[in-house]
């Protein structure tokens, strides 16, 4: 089964945009599809765009953390970009931390961050 969430190539990186009203199974499927894609392409960087997402609850929080952890095992860095301010506020109030998840304000900053992190890795 496909998650119907397209995984795009953005230079050397992969870009996924999570849709607004994603349901739980689709989010889990995305996690599988993304790890398969990383290993197939040998991608070193992944950007997950959540700018249309209105809710990050315990389930989605875990999907994001797990995805970043799985990518890491496959030697890829993940940056979650575009979190809405209201989502950030709610996350903190909910008491949810996203262990291992690196965030950036927007796609552009996310790409910069990836390039920085990967550059550092290459140069020792």
């Amino acid at each position, binding site marked *: 089964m496909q998650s119907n969430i397209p995984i795009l190539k953005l230079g050397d990186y992969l870009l996924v945009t999570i849709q607004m009203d994603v*349901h739980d199974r689709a989010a889990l499927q995305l996690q599988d599809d993304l790890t398969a894609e990383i290993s197939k392409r040998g991608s070193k960087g992944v950007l997950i765009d959540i700018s249309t997402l209105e809710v990050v*609850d315990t389930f989605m929080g875990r999907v994001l953390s797990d995805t970043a952890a799985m990518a890491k095992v496959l030697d890829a860095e993940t940056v979650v970009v575009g979190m809405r301010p209201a989502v950030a506020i709610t996350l903190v109030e909910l008491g949810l931390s996203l262990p291992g998840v690196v965030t950036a304000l927007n796609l552009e900053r996310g790409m910069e961050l990836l390039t920085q992190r990967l550059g550092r890795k290459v140069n020792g």
Partner: protein
Amino acid sequence: MGNDGSFRESISLHSDRDVSRARVLVAQWASQQGFSVVERTRAMTAVSEISRNCVIHGGGGTMYVSTLYNNGSPGFRIQIVDQGPGIENLELSMGRGYSTRGGLGLGLDGARKLCRAFRVESNAGAGTTVTLDYWR
């Protein structure tokens, strides 16, 4: 629409798609009643947690949304009801980090923080009703 101008809607909760629908329904209520984006996000997030609990732990159920006035401030009441096994250890379950299913155990505690008033009625074997109130 009731005689007193009250209004009530319901949605059945049996799958992850229903959980997604529940979030959308609450977003509509919050927007129609002029709630802020942050307050709408809080309501959607709390409903996401409680309706998922209803599906996963409670064997499915129903969500009701109805109009509410608190000292003249308009708002809405959300009730999520199931006839499942009930919450065995309510006090523990309401706290952070307690889960019988290997979850994070943050759902109930988190939802409580994301609404104005929160109530859980649950008895072993007799189902669960969670009530969340929002007013402006």
